[in-house]
């Protein structure tokens, strides 16, 4: 077995220090080492987008990053958005517009849309579809997801 390396990482505002095998994928680290199972694994080759998280504020595929590479960085996962009793406006919008069915791709989409809405507070339909083009959904056909993102942009704007 190769030498373990230290990963000193902040996830959802909480700091963790662990010794890991270099080959441990960030997706597995988050899910099984830190038990943050909201981030899902769909393909492990960077196409489906279910594992998308925020790495220093930018959306990235956690299956294409080694946990060791997160050393010194900040990660945000879906668990940081809201709780069952207090949903984030983005999550509210998804519920209202039926933007999820099985829910498996949903955390990856939420973490993709979150920074997108910060840079595109009034997105057009085209911009939304381009932004979520790297997230595969097999259940919804995307139409309600687009509606949810539009509604979310309005809710977030109203909040400010």
């Amino acid at each position: 077995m190769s030498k373990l390396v230290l990963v000193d990482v902040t996830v959802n505002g909480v700091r963790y220090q662990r010794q890991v095998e270099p080959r441990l994928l960030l997706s597995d680290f988050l899910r099984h080492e830190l038990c943050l199972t909201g981030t899902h694994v769909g393909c492990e080759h960077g196409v489906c987008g279910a594992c998308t998280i925020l790495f220093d504020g930018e959306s990235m595929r956690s299956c294409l990053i080694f946990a060791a590479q997160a050393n010194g960085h900040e990660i945000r996962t879906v668990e940081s958005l809201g709780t069952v009793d207090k949903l984030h406006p983005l999550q509210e919008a998804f519920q209202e517009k039926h933007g999820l069915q099985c829910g498996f791709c949903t955390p990856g989409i939420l973490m993709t849309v979150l920074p997108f809405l910060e840079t595109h507070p009034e997105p057009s339909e085209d911009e939304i579809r381009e932004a979520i083009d790297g997230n595969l959904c097999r259940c919804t056909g995307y139409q309600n997801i687009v509606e949810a993102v539009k509604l979310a942009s309005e809710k977030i704007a109203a909040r400010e």
Partner: protein
Amino acid sequence: MKPAPFDYYAPASVAEALDQLAELGYNGKVLAGGQSLIPAMNFRMAQPAALVDLNNIKELEYIQPTADGGLLIGTMTRDSKVEYSPVVIQRAALICETMPYIAHPQIRNRGTFGGAMAHADPAGQLPGLAVALEMRMHVRSKTNDYWVNADDFFVGPFASVIQPDEMLVEVAIPALAPRSGTCYRQVSRQRGSQALVAVAVRVTLDEKGECVGANIVMLSVGERPILAKKAAGVLIGQIASAGAILAAAEIAATEEIDPGSDIHATAEYRHAAANVLVQRALTEAFARAQGRSSNTQKTSIQNEDTGG
């Protein structure tokens, strides 16, 4: 689909990285953005014994305008940073035009400009642009330090001149001559998926409106980005005309490429599509060179030209 074990090094400086690569020799592999390497490792199609991770080397992340009107881009600069950089939009708009076609935003947030070059994918957009814009690659090892032109840098499928103990440190993009037009066009089965055929062109006119320089580069049609010199030659000394563009496209698409067939497209289709794309790219590039359109024009998914 978990990767095989490897030894891991995370140098903090270029010097440290070069030392590490010198020590590891054939056993060492550079890890840049990882967006191509890690999927291959997860499939166990790649099983490097050791990875030298460049992601902690801040000194490799920069976009620097140069006095001659060009750019220097550090190898670890993230694709998305390049995509939205105002100075890149100004000086090398072709890159910004092409970026939205490269995978998806999440990949571009991690993937690096230099990494894509070193990966040398024959379908890779950035290698294609490197040839089209005559970029120059700066390669270093512990004992060596040299520059190579893009057209000489790519030697075959997934192969560049980089030796096991070497790494790409920066890419130089020359200034675009005045009255130049660039354009990128591709056909892929889906947005962000690998191009079936892609074309990147740069044309330059003199004050009379005659073409004094042209690069026509095609992707996914051979073992590396193909520079269609014969086709370009047809354009030199001409005023851009539909006839000249047609002639150039015909030559480029029939004589200068040798695409293969796969489950997505036949070779014959690729020839035909290459012809169409060269025509479209040249038409638009000439319009931009003449000032009738702009190099910074973005195409949206809904209004990509579907005209003939």
